[in-house]
């Protein structure tokens, strides 16, 4: 049956085709459908009226509730602190404790909150300069992941607990340990605070079973041991680098991260003055990896650290036996040295014989004015050999005498250390033994992280389980705090009191500049609280009073001050530092018996590993600081990672490519690391930086890099031979801010020299021809009318002779100008926001490159190309020569950035504070770190260096106040203040008396890309290489 013929029906009525159904079908409505409808009963409001009313209500509520005229509130102080003036910054001097150098700092606070840190200009050691980490450490104060209260481990989690209860528990545990005569172990970093040392001594008196275990992750034990043996003194002297004409660095990164590199940098560059050509120093660097110091070398030789001892002996051989320097060495040693002729060494290791010859000649000719610096990582024997070599070349006249003899307080530390009667090298072995034998009752970690720092050979983490109680003082979550019974949240430096001995007779004070943001306490105050035994009677100022009374009784009398103690103390706090003038004469008598310790082994050619200090995040303590993680590595420009650096030659042999992954193994331990091919490295050597790969840390530092510290064994040696590497599958994404393998490419090779981005000369060339850089002349033709700047015109000069490329300027700029942290993924896309970068160029061959640094920032060109292309005139020129950027006006076309030949403009592809880690840097506490004088830029606008316009305006305000004109010297930019080498000069280029005018008209001054005729206002002073003309 076909369905087409089907008849469909709705109901039986329909089927039967009844009349009633037909009617229903025909009519729209059924009969009587409106029967009940009564319009009278309907509501009176019609549909239209209803709509009108609801619209009006919405409008009225919208207007009434928001009160569109409301402008918020102004909430003044109730009782204004006398020293605070709204809008005017206050400065407090204090001391930085980011590392053991204890630099004096000056903290800028606005309305009571710290916003910027700089060096304390009155401090005799760091003289107003601090490093990149010190600059950025302010972020740690406001870190949203700081521990906000003390907590107790209750098995499965850390639970908030009151200070009183925790302290009661700990005091009970300490008393128990005392009565049962079980050990109380205090583990800390080196302490050189006189008051803290006194406190610890008192602690030891009350709890006699206390044993102290001080350690450093980046130690110089070998150096100190050798020094002790050679000169019988426990502390190393400062070196008078400012008097040295020839400096030879043997794997010593003295400008980058060893010793007080800030002080070293200032002293080193003091002899790089283009006004004083005859007094230029010459830097030889002999090293395995490529360090920041290596970047600045005049002559650089590649040598693996295990061959340094032979090299030193060969040098001694050459100087004594060939050059016949008048110095008698012990006959046994002479016999030894005889076995190491320099020529043979040079041939064997394919060193540049010309460079070595220059080195030997220089050492011979500059007796008393040259010094050899041995790196911290070199072994004990090399250190002794270097001390010997320094004796031969008369370098002992460069040892600063004021710093050697031990002060009473440092002696205290030595006494403290000796409580365990153990040599430093084996102390932890003892501790582990005692822990495993359950002889330790309480372990106290004084703001240190041994679980991360100690060699895994100790099995410290496991051993800690045998302690009855583990107490960790810490600012943020660490590997150590994660396995402690009590985690005591401590104050940040800026919330703490302290006193430190930077040098003999130099006392640096630390004072709080903000009251604790959270329920934290100062660690010394907690110790005092334990000593008092009355945790309920704790007072905030307990340690403050303790320091003051210690000073009044013990330290103040040493000064023979005419002032009473109180005025003396307040003056000292104000200045941040006090100094005892003394003039001790230390005679350095070399103990030639120490030479018996030198028993060189023949070095092997196997692949070896050198673990180096990193340049930014310290011993891992700054891992959660985004500013530092994002600061480009001074050599490779890598951010957010560590990696295995390897020489191009070795990479070729092992068939490794840039960024490929390898498995690095020593014994049964291994890690996976990306390869970075580093020009200028010694062959058969891998360099990996320490401090990365923290596994218990905040969001920012989590899974950044790899912990190469697992390769350190109990000896603490950071040079490890016989390592194996295996290429493993996959490539790694490394976020560098600069292409760093440009050397291989013929097209871009030496591009910076061809385009005259980097201009350099040797001293001899320059002496012969002062105009050597200015032989080329560019036609001064312009399409646009050039504006004349008759009054004030801001300009900057950067002396490339002085710039070492350390990056302190970038860090200072970030803090001053609210530069956001973008994260690794964004750096990979080239979206880093730094207003300033340090370009690092190589020239020469990949094996033996020469490096050139160049800080690059907005050049504030007179004929700025960015200005012509902005469709909304958001960027234009000010009458005082600044290229100004009005964020409100910017619509984000990015034309300006496209047209900038220097590539210094930065675009906010996101509101990066919001974008990074789901708004990590948008949290409340981080609003306090922003400089209130600088706009916080949001998504979609362009930004760039402003020459610190906020500082210019502040200087202008002061000038108006004094009814005078603003002067060029009134303003110092943030980078200028920070630069440890004082390479940056800023001022009014129309003022003929000024330093900047002098620099701009210097024979060595040049503009980058001068031929574009855009008249930049940043002048570079070309670097003079102090090399001999035949090279």
């Amino acid at each position: 049956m076909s369905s087409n013929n089907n008849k469909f029906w709705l109901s039986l009525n329909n089927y039967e085709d009844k009349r009633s159904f037909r009617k229903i079908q025909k009519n729209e409505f059924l009969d009587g459908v409106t029967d009940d409808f009564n319009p009278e009963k309907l509501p009176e409001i019609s549909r239209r009226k209803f709509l009108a009313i609801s619209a009006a209500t919405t409008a009225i509520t919208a207007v009434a509730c928001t009160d569109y005229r409301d402008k918020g509130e102004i909430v003044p102080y109730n009782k204004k602190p006398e020293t605070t003036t709204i809008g005017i910054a206050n400065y407090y001097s204090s001391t930085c404790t980011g590392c053991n150098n204890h630099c004096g700092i000056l903290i800028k606070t606005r309305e009571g909150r710290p916003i910027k840190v700089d060096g304390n200009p009155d401090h005799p050691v760091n003289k107003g300069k601090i490093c990149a980490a010190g600059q950025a450490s302010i972020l740690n104060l406001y870190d949203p992941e700081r521990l906000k209260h003390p907590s107790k481990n209750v098995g499965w989690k850390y639970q908030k607990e009151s200070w009183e209860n925790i302290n009661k528990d700990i005091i009970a545990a300490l008393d128990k340990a005392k009565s049962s005569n079980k050990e109380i172990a205090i583990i800390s970093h080196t302490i050189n605070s006189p008051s803290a040392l006194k406190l610890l001594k008192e602690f030891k008196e009350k709890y006699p079973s206390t044993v102290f275990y001080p350690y450093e992750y980046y130690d110089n034990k070998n150096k100190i041991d050798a020094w002790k043996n050679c000169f019988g003194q426990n502390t190393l002297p400062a070196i008078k680098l400012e008097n040295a004409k020839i400096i030879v660095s043997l794997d010593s990164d003295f400008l980058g991260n060893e010793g007080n590199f800030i002080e070293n940098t200032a002293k080193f560059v003091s002899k790089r003055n283009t006004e004083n050509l005859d007094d230029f120093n010459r830097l030889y660097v002999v090293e395995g990896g490529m360090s920041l110091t290596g970047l600045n070398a005049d002559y650089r030789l590649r040598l693996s650290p295990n061959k340094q001892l032979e090299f030193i002996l060969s040098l001694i051989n050459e100087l004594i036996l060939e050059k016949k320097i008048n110095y008698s060495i012990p006959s046994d040693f002479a016999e030894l040295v005889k076995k190491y002729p320099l020529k043979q060494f040079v041939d064997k290791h394919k060193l540049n014989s010309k460079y070595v010859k220059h080195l030997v000649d220089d050492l011979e000719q500059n007796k008393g004015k040259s010094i050899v610096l041995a790196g911290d990582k070199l072994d004990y024997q090399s250190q002794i050999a270097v001390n010997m070599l320094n004796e031969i070349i008369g370098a002992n006249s460069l040892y600063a005498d004021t710093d050697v003899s031990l002060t009473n307080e440092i002696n205290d530390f030595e006494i403290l250390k000796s409580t365990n009667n153990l040599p430093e090298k084996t102390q932890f072995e003892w501790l582990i033994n005692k822990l495993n034998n359950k002889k330790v009752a309480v372990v106290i970690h004084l703001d240190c992280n041994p679980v991360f720092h100690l060699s895994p050979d100790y099995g410290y983490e496991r051993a800690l389980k045998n302690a009855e109680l583990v107490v960790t003082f810490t600012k943020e979550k660490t590997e150590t705090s994660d396995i402690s019974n009590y985690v005591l949240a401590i104050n940040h430096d800026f919330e703490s009191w302290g006193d430190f001995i930077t040098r003999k007779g130099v006392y640096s004070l630390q004072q709080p500049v903000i009251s604790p943001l959270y329920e934290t306490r100062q660690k010394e105050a907690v110790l005092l609280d334990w000593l008092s035994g009355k945790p309920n009677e704790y007072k905030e100022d307990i340690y403050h009073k303790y320091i003051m009374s210690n000073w009044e009784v013990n330290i103040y009398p040493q000064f023979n001050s005419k002032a009473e103690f109180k005025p003396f103390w307040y003056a000292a706090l104000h200045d941040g530092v006090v100094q005892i003038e003394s003039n001790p004469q230390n005679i350095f008598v070399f103990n030639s018996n120490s030479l018996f310790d030198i028993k060189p082994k023949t070095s092997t050619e196997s692949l070896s590993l050198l673990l180096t200090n990193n340049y930014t995040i310290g011993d891992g303590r700054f891992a959660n600081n985004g500013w530092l993680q994002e600061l480009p590595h001074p050599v490779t420009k890598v951010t957010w990672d560590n990696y295995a650096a390897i020489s191009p030659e070795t990479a070729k042999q092992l068939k490794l490519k840039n960024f490929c992954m390898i498995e690095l193994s020593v014994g049964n331990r291994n890690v996976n690391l990306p390869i970075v091919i580093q020009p200028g490295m010694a062959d058969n050597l891998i360099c990996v930086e320490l401090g990365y790969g923290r596994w218990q840390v905040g969001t920012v530092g989590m899974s950044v890099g790899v912990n190469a510290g697992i390769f350190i064994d109990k000896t603490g040696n950071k040079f490890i031979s016989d390592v194996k590497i295996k290429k493993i599958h996959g490539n790694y994404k490394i976020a560098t801010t600069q292409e760093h393998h440009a050397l291989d490419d013929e097209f871009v090779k030496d591009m910076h020299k061809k385009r005259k981005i980097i201009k350099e000369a040797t001293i001899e060339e320059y002496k012969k021809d002062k105009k050597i850089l200015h032989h080329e002349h560019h036609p001064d033709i312009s399409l646009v009318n050039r504006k004349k700047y008759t009054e004030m015109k801001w300009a900057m000069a950067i002396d490339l002779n002085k710039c070492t490329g350390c990056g302190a300027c970038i860090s200072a700029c970030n803090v001053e100008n609210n530069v956001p942290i973008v994260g690794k993924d964004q750096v990979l896309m080239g979206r880093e926001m730094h207003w300033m970068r340090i370009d690092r160029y190589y020239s020469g061959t990949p094996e033996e490159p020469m490096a050139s640094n160049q800080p690059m920032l907005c050049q504030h060109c007179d004929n700025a190309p960015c200005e012509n292309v902005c469709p909304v005139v958001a960027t234009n020129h000010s009458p005082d020569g600044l290229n100004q950027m009005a964020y409100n006006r910017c619509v984000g076309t990015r034309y300006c950035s496209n047209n900038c030949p220097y590539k210094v403009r930065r675009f906010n592809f996101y509101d990066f504070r919001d974008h990074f880690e789901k708004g990590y840097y948008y949290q409340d506490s981080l609003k306090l770190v922003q400089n209130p004088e600088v706009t916080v830029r949001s998504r979609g606008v362009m930004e760039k260096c402003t020459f610190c316009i906020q500082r210019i305006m502040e200087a202008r305000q002061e000038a108006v106040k004094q009814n005078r004109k603003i002067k060029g010297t009134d303003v110092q930019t943030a980078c200028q203040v920070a630069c440890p080498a004082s390479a940056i000069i800023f001022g009014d280029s129309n003022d003929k008396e000024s330093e900047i005018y002098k620099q701009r008209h210097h024979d060595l001054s040049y503009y980058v890309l001068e031929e574009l005729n855009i008249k930049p206002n940043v002048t570079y002073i070309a670097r003079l290489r102090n090399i001999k003309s035949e090279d």
Partner: protein
Amino acid sequence: MKKTVLDYLLKIRIPVTLFIILLTFAVTYFVAKPERDGIGYAPEQPIKFSHKLHAGNMNIDCKYCHTSVDKGRFASVPSADICMNCHSVARRDKEEIKKLVEYYEKNQPIPWKRVHKLGDFAYFNHSVHINKSIDCKNCHGDVARMEVISQVNSFTMGACLDCHRQAHSRLPELKDKIKKGPDNCNACHR
């Protein structure tokens, strides 16, 4: 020719409608401009402080309370302890003073309503103007006669530039003392 509906629409209805819309818009724009700029805004303050009484009748210098006006960017609203300099003895019986004392003693800041506001992107500097002898009145009006403080001038970029560019005609009494104000972006924006 027969007039069609379309003709009527095109020639009369639409132009008239458009004209009315535009006129309304233009009139509203200009009439409401002062209000949009905040002119005449005089919010109720937590304490009925009278500038007329203090600055007018008693002739207290502005700087006595607005202490930082010649020192930095902000004039600063006085902290309660400045009020208490006098009111720890003066007029303790008055209702408003009791409120003040209560705030002071409870150590609560007084939540004054903000009357004058610039965008956060503009960095106006009081001290530069005051130290160039430009009187408060020029922007804030005759405060000494205001019982309740209110905004009298518009605080727009146009208003700033108007004075900066024609300082001599706007402030004839300072003709010899000042030049014209800066009108580059960086003068206010950074």
